[in-house]
């Protein structure tokens, strides 16, 4: 049991930081429910990032617990059914900015190591 679990957890933790950022960024367009968020990320990356439901929902609940998003049950405009909509809070917006700049620094740092010279010219 435990021998399979460990690598999976490692992978999730690598993804975790970026997943939070992607969700927050997606919610910048307006409130959305879990399915929409997942589909949006998948579609915008041309299905490069396959959305794992197993990490999407825990991530949403984690964000809510930290106060970066709030949730509300609302009827979808195109369907006669209620969905749980997540909405970005002010705190969430600030967090997004922080994570974005961190990610940018990270990406640049990685790029400098991976393709030296291209940046300096």
């Amino acid at each position, binding site marked *: 049991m435990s021998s399979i679990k460990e690598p999976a957890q490692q992978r999730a933790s690598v993804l975790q930081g970026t997943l939070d950022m992607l969700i927050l960024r997606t919610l910048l367009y307006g409130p959305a429910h879990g399915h929409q968020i997942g589909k949006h990320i998948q579609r915008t990356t041309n299905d490069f990032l396959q959305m794992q439901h197993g990490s999407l*929902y825990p991530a949403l609940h984690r964000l809510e617990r930290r106060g970066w998003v709030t949730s509300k049950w609302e009827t979808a405009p195109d369907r006669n059914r209620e969905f749980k909509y997540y909405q970005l809070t002010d705190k969430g917006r600030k967090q997004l900015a922080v994570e974005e700049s961190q990610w940018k620094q990270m990406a640049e740092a990685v790029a400098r190591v991976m393709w030296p010279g291209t940046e300096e010219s």
Partner: protein
Amino acid sequence: MRWWQIRKRDADLERELQSDLELEEEEQRANGLSAEEARHATRRAFGNTTLIREHIHETWGWAPVERLLQDARYAMRQLWRSPGFSIVAMLTLALGIGATTAIFTLVYDVMLRPLPFAQPDRLVTIKEKVAEWSNLYPTLPVSANHFTFWQQHNRTFHSMAIMQQYSVPLGASGRPLQVEALWATPGIFSVLQIEPELGRKFTVDEAQQGHEHVAILTYDLWYQQFAGDPGILGKIISLNGFPYSIIGVMPQSFRMPSIQTMATIGSTHRELPIGVLVPLALSKERLAEEMGDLNYFGLARLKAGTSIAAANAELNALQHTIAANLPADVKATLSAEVTPFQETLVGNNRKPLMILLGAVVGLLLVGCVNVANLLLSRAVSQKRQMAVAAALGASRAELVRMAIRETAVLAVLGGGLGVLLAAAIVPGMQRYLPPALDFRGPLHLDWAGVGCALLLAVLATLAAGAAPAFMVSRTAPQEVLHSGSRLTSESPRSLQARRVLVAIEAAVSVALVLMTGLLTASLVKLMAVDRGFTTERTITATVDLPSESYHDDQKRAAFYREVLERMNSLPGVEHAAFTSILPLMGDGWGDMARVTGDNRPFTQLPLESFRSVSPQYFSAIGLRLAAGKAFSEGDWGKNLALVSQKTAKSLWPGKDPLGQQFSRGNQPFTVMGVVVDARTVSLAKPDPMLIYVPYWYRVEPMAGLVVRTHQDPSEMADVIRQTIWSVDRGVPVPTVRTLGGMVEDSVANQRFEMDLLLLFAVSALFLAGLGVYGVLTYSVTQRYREMGLRLALGAQRANVYWLVLRDGLLPVAIGAIVGIAVAFGSARVVSSLLFEVSPYDPVLSAGAVGVLLAIGTTACLLPARRAAAVEPMQALRTE
């Protein structure tokens, strides 16, 4: 998030996942998939929704609790499946934990609970020591004269006070109420750091003679007797026949230990709580008495940061100064002893309590060992289950958790039951509190006790669950699963562990049985000892003459004479007599007899215990005369005396004591009889030197009446009261008891200890027997085939029988030897509690081992019979 929100949150989460799931499904259908395919695709995309939910639960932070509840549920299910085992284990733990908690509560209340005063650790009692009198009185109360000197010259005490406590009549008309009054110097308020809630404290002036008729009531007395009258201040009450003006009421929280009960040695007479405080006014004569007035209880508060040792050193230095300045006729060697107040209150009750606590912990240990044993046999039968779990990838930590959770649930259930049991037992233990410490109100199970029970439950889990858990954690799955046998055999290591456990049980049981035997033998000897007086058909009463109307010896003697005349003329009465102190109620008044011609300073004179008695006292309690005769009413007014044999031997060695003269104070006395040495002060030791003087010479306001009757003495109680009241209705008669009852009461505490120990020892024996039986039955089942093989190869049934018996009794015998060794090792602790019994008593030791072996053998018989009855053919054919 609160745990009760979890259910709601979880429902919400489920709904969310469900709605998104449905949406996905719809979209898949819209992409052209069939309903069936769409559902499968969606399931694939979402994966395991339960797992998702569990992950989300983890983010909520309550996962450990959930796992715990899950474990508990699982363990409950497992326990439910074997109710016999569960109930036995649970009750064993409940009994052990409950009994230990109850005894702990008693011990805590007596020895550890802080006294209800500010900074109670700074409160100390002061006792004096006079080297010349140390044979009779190792320590003495404080003298007012010395106290005054200390008060003026000390630098280590914040404040000090001396006090006395008496039971006095309150109210003047009809039958007065008896209350306990504390006479104290004004320092008591700063010593105890208390203030009256209503009114004021005593002033220094009020501690002067002529101004001392003021009183402060305790809250309870004010509430019960004066209906909490808010205008009570300034009212006059009659106390001891004198008018006292009420100047204050103490707060409800004020509880003062009775100092009377500490002074009366060897008495279990229960006092009422203190009801009223009055100033102790010391006359000039008293203050001038340099060695003659060692009568006060000394209580003091140390200055902050002062150690007891420092206070002791200073006080002893002051005592040295006092002794150096004593006049020649009262020359004495003085010292003092400063003791924490709490320690003084506990007195010599510490050791019996510690022994009880030790015994009950022993019982708990035996209980835990038994449960461990049961768990071990269960662990063996669950080996396959564990092996499967291990093979499926359960980590060692998870296996241990699986193994220990049953124990934990058992301990929690047992602990819970134990707390209930303790809560039921504890209030009944109130009457076993030392009288001096029985002042805090009703005894009940409190948080300290519950905390103790919790701790015990945890310890029990560890003690009982450790061995099985250890065994389980070493499970090698392939071995267990490979062996096809359904009857998985127990490893030699586990069998060894179980034998060690049985040996521990045997050791603890034998030590408990021996201890119980020693104390029982002591008590039997104590009750059978020749006490020198008889108790048949004898009833006693105490009277308490109000000081105001009976202020001198003549008045008191006249009253006693009148009562005796009326009592002795009653048809049912054989003898009626007064004595200044009843048998077993303390040693009474100590004083010195000066033999004519002896001119030493009086502090160097031998100290005797004096008793004022009426002529028929000796025949009333059956105290025999060795020589001479008792005085009679016809000798009224004459200074005659009877002495005990011990007194005669030390005052007039080698001479005929009859007709000898001695003086007490400045009164000469003639010895007219010698009384045999008896045990009227304490059953445990022979009386000190006693001198009996007639009651017409001197009598105290408090006295005891002894009546030997022709009929059942208990019917006389009312007659005695009525006769006393026919002489004076205003005389309180606080107690009426049979003399036999007083003898019983004097050993009530020992009897209680013995009863408890007996209960513990019997329980431990029973558990040990159960342990032996369990282990042996199990090993016989395991060795079923082996037995069959032995018999098939020609072994006699008797051989098999002995094999099993020896197997079962070996650990018991080893345990018994260890137990006796432990008991002998702790002999020093016990010996002071024993009466004419050696802690190494060979008969009792052999008896304890014998009892254990008998129980062990009984427990072995059934399994041995079963082993011997194995049918070889059948045994070898199975499997």
